[in-house]
Every structure is written in C-alpha cells, then in structure tokens.
C-alpha cells in the first residue's frame, strides 16, 4: 500500500531540492531564485504526484511559485477531493 506524506512547506522544499540539486528555502521562487526550467517543473509535478497523490498542472509552475505556495496548493486540492 502506498503511503502519502503531509504536504508541508518543509516537505515540499525537500522535494524541490531533490530535483534541483541545490538547497531550497520554503519561500524561494522556482524560476527567479532557483533558476528552474520546464523539465525540472515536469519532474517536480511527477514527484508531487508520487509523494502526495495530487497532480498539479504544469502551468502552475509558469507563474511565480514557492515550495510554501506549492504545498498550500496541494493541500487545497486534497481538501477539494483530489484524493490519493
């Protein structure tokens, strides 16, 4: 059985860090602070689905996005019924 972890800002920053290979703060912006690109966004979307059971739209990463905002988005989607 798959277990999902809680989407806290800290957990989300660890997910981003694993993909981007640099230290990630909870309020770092994906493009401006972390120099993210579209493929890294795709990889994070995949990791988020695997860990939290929520599929974020890729387009979410094309606006300013931080781990904190990303975690809140996952939390909201879970509350709205997008269950793992």
């Amino acid at each position, binding site marked *: 059985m798959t277990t999902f972890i809680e989407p806290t800002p800290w957990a989300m920053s660890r997910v981003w860090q694993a993909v981007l290979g640099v*230290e990630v703060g909870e309020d770092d912006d994906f493009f*401006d602070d972390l120099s993210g690109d579209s*493929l890294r966004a795709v990889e994070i979307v*995949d990791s988020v689905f695997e860990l939290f059971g929520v599929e974020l739209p*890729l387009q979410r990463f094309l606006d300013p996005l931080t781990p904190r905002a990303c975690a809140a988005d996952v939390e909201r989607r879970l509350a709205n019924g997008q269950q793992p």
Partner: protein
Amino acid sequence: MGCDGAIDSQEHDGTRRAPALPRLTTTVLVVGVDPFDASAVDTAALSEAEQRRLAAFSNAHLARRFVGQRTALRRILGGVLNVAPAEVAIRRKCYLCGHPTHGKPYLAGREFEFSVAHSADRLAVAISSRPVGIDIEYLGARPSQRQRLVRAMRHQADPEAATEMHALQLWTAKEAASKVSGSGLVKAPPRALLVTPETAWSGAWRRFVCTSDLLPDADIGGEWTQCSPGVVVAVAAAIDGERPKVRALHVPARSLATGAWR
C-alpha cells in the same frame, strides 16, 4: 496580440551602428558558462534590474551562474550591436498581460530578434532577423532521474515518444516553438502542440514543423540537434516563405569578452 514592441521605439537613441545581420539567417550560440571562471562573469555589465535580482539570490552558486549567463548574453548582444554589454537595452513584455517586468525579452529599437534559454551551466542564444524561439534541455546523469523525466514528459506531452532522446527532442522543439511568439508553455501546453520531424536534415540539425491552434503563428518550422551528449537544443521561427538558415556556434564563455566568436 503579443509583444508588439510599442513601448520601445522612444528608448532607442539612434546612435548605434546598424547591425549587419544577414537576412534569413538565424545564428545559434551555445555557451558553456562556468560560474567560477572570473573572466566569464562581469557584475558591472548587469542592468539595475539584474543587479536587484542578483542581490535577492540566497544560493551563491545560482547567483554566480546568473551573473555568468547574463554576462554572456550581454556580451553576445553587445557584440552584434557594437555597444558595451552594460549598454544593451533589454526589455520585456508579457504576451498575456503586456507587463514589462516579465515575458519574452527583446531589444529596445528591435535591431534584431533574439531568444535565450538556459539549462544548468549552459546558455543558448538565437539571433535572427525574424521572431525566433530557442530552448536547450538536458536529461541529467542519474538513471533514476532520466527515467522519471522521460515518464513525466510522455505523460505531459508525447505518450508515443519511442526513446528517451526522442521524448527530449520533442519537448525541446515544443518549448522553442512556444517561445517564438513569447506565449511560452503558459498559453500552449505541450500536449496541445504537434511536432512532426521532417525527413530532411540540415547538416547535424533535424528539421521539424510545429502546429497548434493555440499559437498565433499558423505553422512554425525549426530544427533540433544534440549539441553534446544528453543535451538537445532546438530553434524555431514562424514559417513565412523561406526558412531562416541556422548557423550554429559553440562558444567558450571567456571568448565572448573579446568578440572573437563573430
């Protein structure tokens, strides 16, 4: 619709030498930027806005990479315009909202069109007489990461991509195509773009066409190549009569300071 450059004409001082760019030629430069090579970084070349962005970085490596990439871009554009890197007036305009703080970059005065992309420590720049888009992507070295990326690209864009390199080529081509107008993948999700490789090659470049109802240009033509192992670069432009010929250069970042690449 899109970045029509209406705000920039008054900012052009009119004193620059007109660049002698061949018509219907797209020049692609791929630059390896070593953030720790002192000759490749020049903080003084950055604009005020770039200086502010630099000050906001908390990660020292990313900050140096940012300076290296902006230095390289400004040296390239300054070399073509025949002005100092710091004097290159780069503007932005959002395709969707028209705001000048984000969106596709362009030159004040629009002496020529350019597009820029980066991936890790590589920078790719395309310079053309017509609107152009460029993208550069790499898969990464770790097998687990490569597998994850390929699975994700297939899910988001091309389920039928046969190999990991094919998936990367299609993705890079789509992103380059979406950058011609400046819409980016915001307006044109990768699944909505259809990239068809052509049988013709142009040297080491594989030609493709990209079609989508979501892009303002009916048809976009481009070319992709593998510029180093695991790294794909793609360049695209609207098909309007003859296609621009791609001239590609691999340039060490330190040679940009002298303009020797031209």
